[in-house]
């Protein structure tokens, strides 16, 4: 079973839109929406939930005020500032480390479960899908991402699917790392803006850090062709394939408004430009499939990149 992760560093470059389009094109895939704190894939794929499970992340400290003698040790030892003057624990600040439980002389502190999200295993018109909803402001988005990926694997086994397509989160932090570790290929959706380029370089470093092969696709390439060429140039220098360019087009929004994938929408579109757009997506997908086929087991990604030189 192969795993493809779609990320971008910068938000709003088209990860979900393209992942949904790939879901229409892949014959035998499971979709995993790993952008758990702003999950949007379900708006297009309209999943029918088969199983749902409360997801418990790190625990949260509770102080029994009946037993508490207000000695202040918990507050002194808590490195996250989670215990206030009245010995109440702020759940948004508590990281569940449990240090307070070991320093309390009265055993007044206990660790309680906290439901930090819900994980779903679902069916859609385009195949099985794993997704989740993170509770507001919860700490453990990375762990919930891992839970989604493990559900996706189970679905793939159950439905005999040989590919998992992961819609990743923006950024380079805990959720992004959880979304890409152990995958076979990372696709970065970039855009030719100063932010897009900066963030692309950061995610290239990230994938190099975890030694995962990477390919790049440039969305909205025509808003700044000079920047597009710059991206293509430095990717080539790093030996990273740029597998396609997509123009600026409202098709993504139009398809979204119809709750359709790009491919579903384009099928009924009479505009040449929209059909061309869909064709480009088709070609990008064909290249990805070929690269995935060529990847034998775990390859080593590019190492020791000198991104700063660029």
């Amino acid at each position, binding site marked *: 079973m192969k795993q493809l992760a779609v990320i971008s560093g910068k938000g709003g470059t088209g990860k979900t839109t393209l992942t949904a389009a790939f879901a229409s094109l892949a014959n035998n895939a499971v979709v995993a929406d790993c952008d758990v704190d702003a999950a949007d894939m379900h708006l297009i794929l309209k999943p029918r939930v088969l199983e749902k499970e409360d997801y418990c992340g790190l625990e949260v400290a509770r102080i029994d005020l009946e037993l508490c003698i207000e000695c202040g040790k918990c507050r002194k030892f808590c490195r996250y500032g989670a215990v206030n003057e009245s010995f109440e624990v702020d759940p948004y600040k508590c990281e569940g480390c*449990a240090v307070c439980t070991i320093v309390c002389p009265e055993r007044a502190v206990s660790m309680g479960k906290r439901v930090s999200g819900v994980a779903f295993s679902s069916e859609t018109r385009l195949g099985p899908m794993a997704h989740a909803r993170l509770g507001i402001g919860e*700490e453990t988005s990375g762990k919930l991402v891992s839970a989604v990926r493990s559900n996706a694997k189970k679905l793939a086994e159950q439905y005999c699917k040989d590919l998992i397509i992961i819609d990743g989160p923006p*950024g380079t*932090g805990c959720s992004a790392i959880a979304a890409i570790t152990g995958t076979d290929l990372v696709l970065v959706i970039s*855009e030719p*803006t*100063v932010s897009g380029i900066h963030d692309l370089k950061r995610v290239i470093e990230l994938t190099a850090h975890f030694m995962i092969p990477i390919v790049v696709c440039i969305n909205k390439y025509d808003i*700044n062709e000079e920047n597009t060429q710059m991206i293509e140039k430095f990717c080539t220098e790093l030996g990273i394939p740029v597998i396609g360019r997509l123009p600026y087009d409202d098709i993504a929004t139009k398809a*979204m408004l119809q709750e359709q994938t790009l491919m579903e929408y384009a099928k009924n579109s009479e505009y040449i430009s929209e059909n061309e757009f869909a064709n480009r997506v088709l070609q990008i997908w064909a290249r990805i499939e070929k690269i995935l086929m060529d990847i034998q087991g775990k390859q080593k990604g590019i190492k020791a990149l000198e991104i700063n030189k660029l």
Partner: protein
Amino acid sequence: MKIAIASGKGGTGKTTVSLNLALALSDVQLFDCDVEEPNCNLFLGFELEKVEDVICSVPVIDSEKCSICKQCSDFCRYNALAALPTRILVFPSLCHGCGGCAILCPEEAIQESQRSLGVIEKAKEGSSPEFYRGLLNIGETMTSAVIKKLQQHIDNRKTAIIDAPPGTACPVIASIGNMDYCVLVTESTPFGFHDLKLAIDIVRAIKIPFGVIINRWGLGDSRVEEYCKAEGISVLLKIPNDLKIAELYSRGIPFVREMPGWDEKFLGVFEAIKLQLAGIEEART
């Protein structure tokens, strides 16, 4: 006054709004709290200097003293310590620096050393706006620790604009948790609207007054405006879906600098925020 610029969905225009608002105001501090992907300075071009490292404590185990009692590895909630038959293994990148293992160790075999998570930088003296940013090291996961350190540089006598990260998880709470006001930037598409509602859930849960800026106005449909109207949420500004703005953005130019009239509009946003906060204050007393 501390104003955070946030959004559930990424790429809706948080950085654009933060920059343009900060440039329209005077005596203002701008903080780039999107420490995983800080972009503000691409548009400001300031020369940055390091203020401090953001550090996290990690255990160092003295194998001479360690009796492999496993109390530390059993205690660690982050799986940063693992007990092998002959020694305890430390995984620094998983450690949250809580210090519990060192407190527990009966042999006093655990010392703490410091690991760098990232860095806080600021623009050289005399830059306007006054600018600070955090940068999380590649491969690190403790985003919130960098944001908290960065926010220690807020000067309460000034107006602070905080460019928050996307999403709804802990880095967002760390960025907007102690703000006076939150601006939610969105676009009127199904994704934008869905994630706006998530963001509204957050600001309501942590009780921060807020308003909405609709970016790429004209794209999509009118669902955001209708929702805001029905919910009595103030729409502070609409930024049109203008290729000129997108093109300026692609080159790293904040559009207030190039497009006449927008300075006043962002000043108007600031006035509207002040008015809304004054109204809330009045209702309270």
